[in-house]
């Protein structure tokens, strides 16, 4: 990286026109890592994004324009846009923590209201085996499974997950 920007405090941003890349130093105490991820992810369709730790407590984000070329103005715009997205993601991270209960309640109500109660067919087709959980006390085991006796024959309802 060769040059910095006159309108940004020294040491925070550098750009390299030849490589069509900019680097931003990000303080994770201001922008949590989840916010850095959120902002970085938005850019991976039009930039190559690389994260580094130049030193403990710092994150360096390198954005390289896909296509291999970008003028100074475009790189400066990239810095500004990334910074705005980073700010939005950091703030959203905080808001989500503050309003977690409200957000979860509304989301659950929205999805539950739309889904409604499962039908017997829905329950019959639900694959409980995916739910993998620890069962050190064998609570989920039937008496027969625990003590080695055969379980009574049970009806199998293999309904499809169709309305």
């Amino acid at each position, binding site marked *: 990286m060769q040059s910095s920007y006159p309108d940004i405090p020294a040491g925070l941003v550098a750009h390299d026109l030849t490589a069509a890349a900019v680097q931003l130093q990000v303080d994770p105490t201001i922008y949590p890592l989840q916010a850095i991820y959120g902002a970085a992810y938005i*850019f991976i369709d039009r930039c190559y994004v690389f994260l580094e730790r130049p030193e403990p407590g710092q994150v360096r984000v390198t954005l390289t324009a896909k296509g291999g070329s970008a003028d100074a103005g475009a790189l400066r715009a990239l810095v500004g846009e990334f910074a705005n997205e980073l700010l939005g993601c950091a703030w959203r991270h905080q808001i989500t923590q503050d309003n977690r209960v409200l*957000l979860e309640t509304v989301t659950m109500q929205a999805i539950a*209201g*739309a889904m409604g109660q499962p039908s017997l067919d829905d329950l019959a087709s639900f694959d409980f085996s995916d739910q993998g959980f620890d069962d050190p006390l064998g609570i989920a085991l039937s008496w027969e499974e625990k003590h080695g006796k055969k379980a009574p024959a049970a009806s199998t309802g293999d309904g499809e997950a*169709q309305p």
Partner: protein
Amino acid sequence: MSAVQPATSSSSASSPAPLDLVALRPQAGTQAFFRHRVVGDRVLVTNFEGGWLLLTRPEFAQFATGTVPAASALHDRLAAANFLRAHYDVRRAADALAARRRFLHAGPNLHIFVVTLRCNETCVYCHASRANMDQVQTDMTPEIAEKAVELALRSTSPFITIEFQGGEPLVNFPVVQHVCEYAGRRAQELGKQLQFTMVSNFALMDDAKLDFLIAHRVQLCTSIDGPEQLHNAQRKLPTMDAHQRAVHWIRRINRRYEDMGLDPTLYHVEALLTTTRETLPRWKEVVDTYVGLGCKALFLRPIDPFGFADRTRLRLEYPRGAYLEFYRNAVDYMLELNRQGVQVLERYAGIFLTKILRGEDPNFLDLRSPAGAGIGQLAYNYDGKIFSCDEGRMLHEMGDSKFQLGDVRTSSYRDLVGHETVRAMVLASNLDGQPDCVNCTYQPYCGTIPTFNYKNQGSIFGRMRESSVCQVHKGIQDYLFEKLAAADPAVLAAFDRWTTHRAREHFVQTPGQAASQAALEP
């Protein structure tokens, strides 16, 4: 990225002087939770549940500093509107919030059936990625249509609207007929209330089609871009008479409703406007055209970034400040017409005002929190693919299938509405989790559109300060609250009419009532 410039002010009207909060030295303690915004010469405050007051600057200063005299009219106003901590009525706030979110208790009520991509018109801003008339492979088959109907009727909403779109839905009229008959029968069997709507350019309408649509109580809606020259320049038929044909059928259909004894103020063809750059200076002609056609409502929608509009945006797009100036001029004119006894309303205003003045949510899916994508609407493409919303389907036609939820052949209803994309969109469009919106005075009345955010800004969350949709929403609400502050009795009376909901019972098919039989009864 959008060509629209982010605005520093919400409209071209001069920006009000900001509050000097440092000089004001607010003191917390007496106020319940509130947000504030300068609107004209007043300060608007809204509370958590969407109550509002317009205060003068001195009044706001007293409120913000906790120095409102106890035995004052201001104190009484604040207490009555639930803005004071000592008098805060939690139950009332909870009930008000529940009323605004009542739509959460039911699933998708709007089901968009894209019965074909073929279209006989070429519109410069087409967002549907229309196909040429020989592309018959873009027609929905009856088999796919039936599966889509079955999924739609599985919704937990007791009231289902099936909206026919395209392309031009009249191009695939046999499937429209099949859906009307099949869905009508199945809704009766399942005990669902059902209605149909169709968005059509009317150019392929004839008497036989109209007879069927009338008999099956399909609400008809078309597009009118304003005066004939503008409309025909933007919506091209080979015969260059798109406007004339649309107008012809608007008048024929309205006459049919009258002949059936239906109230013409309630039953008439609705028309939709798409505002392009050419439209902006012609606000008076647009309103006059709609009024002349007997329309009672205009929906002054800005252009969207989907479909062809993405390709032609350099020619069609405009700064949203210019749109808001157009909006103000047009609605001022409409209010003047109302004053003269002409009944016409602006749809955006009606939606916002219903939330502001009546504390209800009219369930316009793009203007609610969370948005309706996936939980309020589903879009069924001609080929059986199912999307969270029509914009999600448009993105698919543009090459991006992120918002596809499933397929009519393989997906269950619960798979669709419980899809992780739907959950993501619900979270992303909940304004209680959105930077900027969380502090915005208009948050109780507003909404964000995840697909717009994604298309214009790269994520379903978006950044509201740079969002043209946010700019429009803020600008319209600023205008409405300026009007409310001015308190002109004629304007308030018009706003009362604009928020009075009159149900169009004739179009609703209720269980136990056959569609075509009921259509003969006024």
